[in-house]
């Protein structure tokens, strides 16, 4: 379902070139839960951003459902992302002035159709946030923030979920809730690409890959 072929990416900063990714090729099947490990700076996040259509690779191509997403215009790619991809980051990226309920509904801004209210509450409840509906991110714990971010990513039931170090700031209990949620999503047919340092993720993942530093 996701076909990554010979992807390379380098960054140039202050006349210094950093090779973030070098000739990575990878295929991820529909419903597969893939854990990606590797040392810091090996390009795991870069790989996720490229797979999410947010970062143009220097070379190579990404096919999602046989469609090269970088052949699409930026606008069409945004629409594609809204329809097919959910993304969760280590730093949550919640909008600080919105409540939990509103943050979860943010993807609706990019969609033509709204999600029924009962489905929103169902997702929120499944992640244990029922009591936090009207709280802003500043009033939440790290685990609650990450669960809110996860609920946001899952709202439109995307085909692919990209998760970047999402248990990195969480205690064991919260990490377990989040990982179970990812496993459940995968079991329902969703494809998960999880970048993590957490070895426990391997237990739930269908496959684990290691990226070496370029």
């Amino acid at each position, binding site marked *: 379902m996701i076909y990554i072929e010979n992807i390379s990416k380098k960054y140039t900063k202050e006349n210094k070139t950093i090779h973030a990714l070098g000739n990575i090729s990878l295929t991820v099947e529909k419903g597969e839960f893939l854990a990606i490990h590797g040392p810091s700076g090996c390009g795991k*996040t*870069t790989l996720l*951003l490229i797979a*999410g259509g*947010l*970062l143009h690779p220097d070379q190579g191509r990404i096919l999602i459902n046989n469609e090269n997403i970088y052949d699409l215009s*930026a*606008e069409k790619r*945004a*629409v*594609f*992302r*809204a*329809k097919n*991809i959910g*993304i969760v*980051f280590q*730093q949550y*990226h*919640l*909008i*600080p*002035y*919105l409540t939990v309920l*509103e943050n979860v*509904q*943010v*993807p*609706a*801004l*990019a*969609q033509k159709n709204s999600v029924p209210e009962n489905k929103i509450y169902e997702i929120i409840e499944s992640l244990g946030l029922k009591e936090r509906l009207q709280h802003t991110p500043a009033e939440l714990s790290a685990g609650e923030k990450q669960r809110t971010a996860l609920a*946001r990513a899952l709202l439109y039931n995307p085909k692919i979920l990209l998760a970047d170090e999402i248990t990195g700031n969480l205690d064991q209990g919260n990490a377990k809730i989040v990982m179970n949620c990812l496993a459940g999503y995968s079991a329902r047919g969703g494809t998960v690409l999880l970048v993590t340092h957490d070895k426990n993720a391997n237990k739930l993942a269908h496959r684990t890959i290691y990226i070496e530093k370029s």
Partner: protein
Amino acid sequence: MNISTLVIKEIKRRKLNFFLGLLSVVFAVTTVTGALTMLQVHDHKTNEIITEKEAETGERMALLEDDYRKIMKKLGFNLLILPKEQNISDLFASDFASKLMPESYVDSLAASRSMLIRHLLPSLQQKIEWPEKRRTIILIGIRGEVPFLHKDPKEPMMIAVPKGTMVIGFELHDKLGLKQGDEVKLLGRKFKVGKCNEPRGNKDDITIWINLQEAQELLNKQGKINAILALKCFCSGGNQAQVREEVQSVLPGTQVIEKGGKVLVRAEARARAAKEAQDAIQAEKRHRNKLRNQLVKFAAILVPLVLLSSALWITFLFIGNVNERKSEIGILRAVGVKEKFIMRLFLLKALLIGVFGAVIGYFLGLGTGSVWGGLFSFSLFNLYLFLLVLLFAPLLSLLAAYIPAAMAARQDPAEVLREE
């Protein structure tokens, strides 16, 4: 969840940012509205002042006219006593009376107990050719004022021209090059120029005055005169009938006409006063216009400066706002929000700043202009200006926020998300 919720919640979260933007628009709109209101107040006041001045002038003119009427009544009027058979049309046509009367008439009048006439000036006048100079002149013989015998002697109003001298009108001495002390011949008799008159712009400029007796001899009309000028006649009713009756009771062979009517004098005085009043009003108008021009010039410099500063201030505020919301923009792009949406997010905020700023600024400007101009009136509210402000203030705000909004829309989400 929609764009309005996002904008309103963000404004509530970052109140200072919104308030500073609003303040900038309010300041710009207040300056524009204030300046225009001040001009409006100025024009209003100018109208008031001019109307007041015109009313005041009207009142003064009425008082002045009344004063002139009273003064003229006290001053009395001048009469010309002529031979009864003198045709008045001929008198006006030829500038002198052609019929004669005895010089003794004036003595008879002086000996009468007239209480209405104050000065008597007998004269013999004739238009003649001045053969030595080949000029047409009016020759007037005068003997000075004849005193009333029953009244206390006073300084005479006019003294006789001494024998052997002449007083010469401006046109004659100017064209002939004559000056005081020159000797000149008139009808074969030698005269010394005793005085050269200033220009008077009437028949006096071609007149020569000599002693009455000499005039009578030169014209071969001994003991004759053709007019007696009765000056400063005074009667309580202000009409000639009483004086005429009195003169004709003494001199039945004469007729009396008014010379230089007081109505004419009064009209001239009134016209002069009216002109002065109009000049004063025009001067006031010029002064007010000058003040207005100064205000317009000041506003023409101040308003663009304020608008520009305001626009720059909004631009910088929005650049700050965009930087502060990088992460928010990044996640919005990550969930699939388009660039246009991000632009609209910022432009909607700018629109709200513009609309609120326009309304607050308009009324603040109206108040400031009124206080500054010292005039409070509902008539100063200008719907057309209000609508213009309501259109242009949001436009200014949108233009100022456009570049930061475009920057936000073009922001690379991967860069922010990766850095975080």
